[in-house]
């Protein structure tokens, strides 16, 4: 519940009054702190806490402090009054410290969560490929043996079964690839993106190109994040944009990596987003943010869409040759 303008003005006034009382008491006291001092400090804490709960920012509070201090009698620089004023501010800001540490912790958790998701995806992809793939091969074998026993007319039935199996195999392979492309693990971001682009070009009815100047591997977390963001962007283009041309650009900025997905499709009004599409964009921002980067989406109706992301890359990863354009094969 947002506070009213009047309420905020009242808080500011109360802060100034409490600060002044505190400063003047300190300036007049020569011995050990009087019991009432803790009363005033607790008041400072409560004021800060109320501001935090009411959505007043930290900087705002500090600004109130500065203004109030100017009108404080007794706040002589270097004197006990000035000292007391600083302590008062410290108390008022303490609630914000807890919140700040909470955010830092949350970001760390988010990073761990993404790691967990990638590991799970890798595990599932592998068992799809190994487990189900092997079973399908065994079925093929059995069908071959069966076919050998059957008269010629009956063998046609077997043939259509084989074709269905091939379709299942293809779908499983696509699914595994979508979940966690082996290319990403083995060769890195750019080869994986080229394979992704190839897939969309072949089956998505779009022309997707990749331009990259990245000549090194990045940390797994950064590569995964960039891959997922581009993947999400392409899904959106395919679903909403009716685009003909999509350009994926990857640029090495030294201490960061920049990536852009631009399509010449219908565009949209960023103010006016359906919840589904909104969630996709939100998750792109979260992925980038969790690694200290930024993702932005620029679009306007009729002007196409650009998804731009930059993530700090540090000096991680050994320099590696950029792989040959991926052909979609799996390891």
């Amino acid at each position, binding site marked *: 519940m947002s506070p009213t303008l009047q309420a905020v003005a009242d808080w500011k006034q109360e802060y100034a009054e409490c600060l002044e009382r505190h400063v003047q008491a300190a300036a007049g006291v020569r011995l050990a702190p009087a*019991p009432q*001092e*803790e*009363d005033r*400090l*607790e008041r400072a*804490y409560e004021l800060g*806490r109320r501001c*935090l*709960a009411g959505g007043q920012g930290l900087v705002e509070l500090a600004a109130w402090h500065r203004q109030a201090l100017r009108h404080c009698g007794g706040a002589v620089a270097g004197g006990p009054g000035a000292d007391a004023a*600083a*302590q008062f501010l*410290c*108390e008022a800001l*303490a*609630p914000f*410290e*807890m*919140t*700040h*540490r*909470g*955010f830092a*912790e*949350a970001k760390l958790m988010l990073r761990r969560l993404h790691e967990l998701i990638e590991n799970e995806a890798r595990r599932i992809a592998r068992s799809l490929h190994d487990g189900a793939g092997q079973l399908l091969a065994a079925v093929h074998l059995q069908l071959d043996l069966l076919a050998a026993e059957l008269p010629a007319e009956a063998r046609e039935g077997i043939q259509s079964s084989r074709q269905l199996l091939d379709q299942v195999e293809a779908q499983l392979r696509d699914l595994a690839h979508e979940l966690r492309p082996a290319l990403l693990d083995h060769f890195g971001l750019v080869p994986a993106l080229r394979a992704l682009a190839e897939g969309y070009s072949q089956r998505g009815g779009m022309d997707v190109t990749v331009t990259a100047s990245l000549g090194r591997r990045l940390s797994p977390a950064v590569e995964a994040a960039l891959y997922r963001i581009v993947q999400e962007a392409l899904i959106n283009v395919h679903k909403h944009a009716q685009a003909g041309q999509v350009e994926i650009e990857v640029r090495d900025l030294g201490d960061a990596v920049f990536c852009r997905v631009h399509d010449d499709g219908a565009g949209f009004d960023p103010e006016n987003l359906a919840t589904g599409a909104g969630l996709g964009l939100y998750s792109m921002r979260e992925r980038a943010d969790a690694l200290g980067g930024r993702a932005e989406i620029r679009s306007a109706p009729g002007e196409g869409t650009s998804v731009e992301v930059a993530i700090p890359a540090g000096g991680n990863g050994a320099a590696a040759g950029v792989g040959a354009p991926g052909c979609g094969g799996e390891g």
Partner: protein
Amino acid sequence: MHGGWPQYAADGGESLRYEIAGEADLVAARDGARRLAGQLGFALGETTLIATAITELGRNILMYAGAGEITMSVSRGGLRQGLEITARDRGPGIGNLRQALQDGYSTSSGLGLGLPGVRRLVDEFTITSEAGSGTQVRIKKWLPVRQQRAS
């Protein structure tokens, strides 16, 4: 001093105990903690955070149990020195501890305040609570090595 006179524990020495039944008692407990922390050598920022922990723990006592106590003492672990604070009440207890320790469960913790907030300010945090049998929160904050004073 307002209500909640400091009491000295049976083992003598450096333990302080405060009955918490009203806001004035919180102030007394804060004051005691600040003195103790100052004596140990905690810097201004840290004594503020210790007073913050007291306030949040005390608020919980008042809000959920109506009354309780906060005790504090010097803690020694090997070469380290620090402050140990325990907040106890005989209130209804916390039925779902995990929920209570998560941000977003109550209004306070949605902002990172309350129990989750206190946990981030201290070095050790233990909570024991069961529905119907009260709550005990014990926290410890160690002095950074450079600030330890010869005891």
